[in-house]
């Protein structure tokens, strides 16, 4: 099973770099997501690995074969790279029936007719589209077209599968359904999946590893839960997670006992880092996930906490998002039950757990995680 290695890959469009010196190692059987806002170079990266786009510089290896190298002048065309590609707009051939669309790739591989027939039948069953085999793409709904496109891509049993925002044209319910099926397909085909999306929820739920990109530069490459709890920098912390992380500017000063004294506009506190670290700046940003802000209906003297007022309240049944005003700062909190706080209600809040983060304000890099108590 192949392993995909990108070394120093750069793609210039005119004078702007769409992808900037990217190094990436994808293990076989991985489900990798290239995640980032639009224009961050994720689709370009995918197309370069597939061979649909030529990098300006760098080296790409799939398995034990170098498929692109600017130094050695190697550029193997897409049809010789043994990969599958699922396009965002499906790219089904309008003049062929569903059956012909799926069978076309197998004909290219010179499969025998009975083999083709049984393989297509298998895929039609797998994707639950048997009744449509004689129809043309224009006679199918979006979700059905999507399934045909997947069947066509899977037909030749590719070892590596590239998916370019395949779910973005579907409605919310279908998207959820297809997400489940993609994850199952990944397990049953045992292929390597490289998946492009701008939807952080898709990336979180589907992948074994997320490659987060911004302006052509990789920000973090880690399993989704690690990206969530230990984001490498402010961008990663902000991009992943919904509702977004709370960021509070503060002045930091080390104390003799290893803790850090923090002074923000609306409160001051003491931060206990999980591990030893060196603080070489005084301007920091405190990052707190909404679920780590606990709300107490009444301020209890024994519990360390802050006075806050409810700014707005958005219950969704399973959980409730509460916007809180502390001094002049607005914080977002999520609690996992349905509560309907009246606006302007006075409550007490505290910071829970030891996954509170400290970032260097200037470089944006994460410094350390730990717990935070107010003083």
């Amino acid at each position, binding site marked *: 099973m192949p392993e995909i290695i990108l070394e120093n890959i750069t793609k210039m469009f005119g004078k702007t770099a769409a992808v900037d010196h990217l190094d990436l190692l994808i293990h076989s059987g991985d489900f990798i997501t290239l995640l980032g806002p639009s224009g961050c170079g994720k689709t370009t990266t995918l*197309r370069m690995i*597939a061979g*649909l*786009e030529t990098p300006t510089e760098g080296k790409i290896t799939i398995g034990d074969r170098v498929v692109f190298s600017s130094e050695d002048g190697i550029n193997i*065309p*897409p*049809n*010789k790279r043994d*990969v*599958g*590609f699922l*396009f*965002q*707009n499906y*790219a*089904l*051939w*309008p*003049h062929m029936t569903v059956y012909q669309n799926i069978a*076309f*790739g197998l004909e*290219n*591989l010179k499969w025998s007719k009975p083999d083709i027939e049984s393989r297509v039948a298998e895929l039609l069953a797998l994707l639950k589209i048997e009744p449509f085999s004689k129809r*043309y*793409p*224009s*006679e199918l709904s979006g979700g059905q077209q999507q399934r045909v496109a997947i069947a*066509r*891509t899977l*037909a*030749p049993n590719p070892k590596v599968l590239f998916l370019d925002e395949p779910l973005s044209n579907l409605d919310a319910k279908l998207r959820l359904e297809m997400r489940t099926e993609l994850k199952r397909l990944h397990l049953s085909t045992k292929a390597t999946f490289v998946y492009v999306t701008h939807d952080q929820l898709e990336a979180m739920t589907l992948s074994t590893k997320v490659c987060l990109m911004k302006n052509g530069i990789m920000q973090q490459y880690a399993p989704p839960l690690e990206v969530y709890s230990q984001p490498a920098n402010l961008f990663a912390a902000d991009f992943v997670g919904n509702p977004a992380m709370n960021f509070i500017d503060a002045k930091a000063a080390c104390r003799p006992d290893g803790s850090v004294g923090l002074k923000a506009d609306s409160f001051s506190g003491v931060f206990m880092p999980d591990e030893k670290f060196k603080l070489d700046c005084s301007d920091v940003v405190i990052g707190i996930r909404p679920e780590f802000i606990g709300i107490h209906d009444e301020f209890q003297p024994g519990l360390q906490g802050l006075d806050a007022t409810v700014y707005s309240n958005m219950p969704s049944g399973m959980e409730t998002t509460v916007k809180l005003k502390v001094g002049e700062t607005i914080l977002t909190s999520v609690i996992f039950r349905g509560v309907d706080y009246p606006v302007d209600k006075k409550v007490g809040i505290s910071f829970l757990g030891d996954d509170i983060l400290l970032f260097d304000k200037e470089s944006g890099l994460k410094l350390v995680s730990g717990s935070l108590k107010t003083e």
Partner: protein
Amino acid sequence: MAKDQAKAPRMLFGNKVVVFFSKPANVILVVFFVLLCMLTLYPLLTLVSETFTVHAGRESIATGQKRGTLSLYSFKKLLFTLDDGGEQGYKSSTSWIQFYSPLFNTLSVSLLSSFLAILFGGVVAWLVTRTNIRFKKFISAVFVFPYIMPSWTLAMFWSNFFKNVNVGPGTSNGIMAAVFGIMMPEWFVYGFFPISMVLGLHYAPFAYILIGGILRNMDANLEEAASILKTPRWRIVSRITLPIVMPAMLSTLLLVFASTMSAYAVPVFLGSPVRYYVLSTKMMSLMSTYKGQGYIIASVMIIFGVVILAINQSFTGKRKSFTTVTGKSSQISLVNLKKANWPIALILMIVLVLLAILPLVSFALESVIIKAGDYSLSNMTLDFWIGRNLDYLDQGDANGILFSPKVLKALGNSLLLGISCAVIAGTCGVLVGYGIVKRRGTWLSGAVNNLSFFPYLLPSLAFGAIYLAMSGKLPFINGMFALILIGSVKYLPFASRSGINAMLQLSNEIEEAAVIVNVPWWKRMTRIIFPIQKSSFLSGYLLPFVSCMRELSLFTLLVPTSDTLLTTMLMQYSEKGWDQFGNAINLLIIIVVLIINFAVNKLTGASIDKGIGA
């Protein structure tokens, strides 16, 4: 309650009419439906009735009936006189000579030339849109030259270049014979072969524009998807690209077929000298003697046109809908021609120079030599351009064309005609496009759509003939007014096509957003819709202008005198053998058209090749 319901329909009818006409799109459609019926269907009926009528002159003498009498004489004479006792059986019969042989010639010329045009235009379109061929900008700019130039340009160039004293009625040698001493055989200089070649080359840019538009709009992912599935390059072209663009290609083929079928100027230049007739030239010669038979030929050409439209329509709306073809195209990866790049680019450049630039050089040359056939420097003069008091030449004009009041007047008239037709047809095209797209799917919209396309299928010459016949009954149709009217109607299809395309690309919400805040209709048109699709709409203005400037056959029957327009003047000069003035005027027309095309393109981004795009 029941009583109210029974009453309701009658009460509502008046309301329905008011509601119907409160929508500008409906008003536009109704107005244009009526107008187009009057300007296309009524003339058509006139034409049909003329075929059953005895005309003054020979027809009247032959039948012994007064003019205006109803008679089947013309039909019998033209279509059913297959044996009138000639020595060679049917081959010497009237019907064969006057009708069946020209019909056969027309069909074979049209077939070969449209095939050539599609092949040449299609290959260049593919090279420019789908490969990394060099000099793309130059190629696509120069390739449309032959289409912008008057259709007889290449024909004139062909005969300028290849004519020699051995063939046809030629009395002088062309460049090939004079300079290189090569005498080309007659089949190469006049008749079927050169007519097909020249028409094919003239319409190749047209095919290029249409097919290029399709290829540009075709989603490159469709090809990439095949590439990923290990499809060899040739198989992608043959199994994916070609089948997907096939319906559009066929429709292009039919349009080119219809255009070549009604071509007049080229067969005149390259066929008449050796008595090789096609339907259009035959019709023109019959118009002076047997009008009824001429009108029958015009009707036959129109029937062909309508059949072609019907076939074309049956291609659309099939099961294998190709609507996805116009989908969004993301990044297109171009085919790498590798080592073939330079040779292909070079060959194409040479062909383009031969086609687009050499004719201009030849016209410039022919317009400065004093004695035909002698291309030495001592035989050259600029008198035909800027000279004064040239009485010694005895060529109809005493001044070079840039100082001749006659030529300048004609230039003014041509410009006036071109601009008027462009403004009228272009504006109507925008309105028709708006109405048709807004009410898509209704009967009225479909009817206006077909009616507005209909003039395209009427051969220019036949169309001119119809209006000539009509002007007899409606005397206010004369002079410049008649020319502007017929020009506007004839070129409406170009404008309405680009209007429809422009409107189709605009989502409904854009206008609805303005309707919600109560912006009046005319303001929505002028401030929102037109500015957004400016370049598409302007192409709808540019095409009628360019077409009018270089049009001959449409106007030739309707001009008050042959001095009225540059093109008719040119035809007169070349008939009289005043070759230098003729070539100079031809060059003048081409330069004016190219300059205006270029200026409009630079100023607004509109261009010919954006106009018709499928």
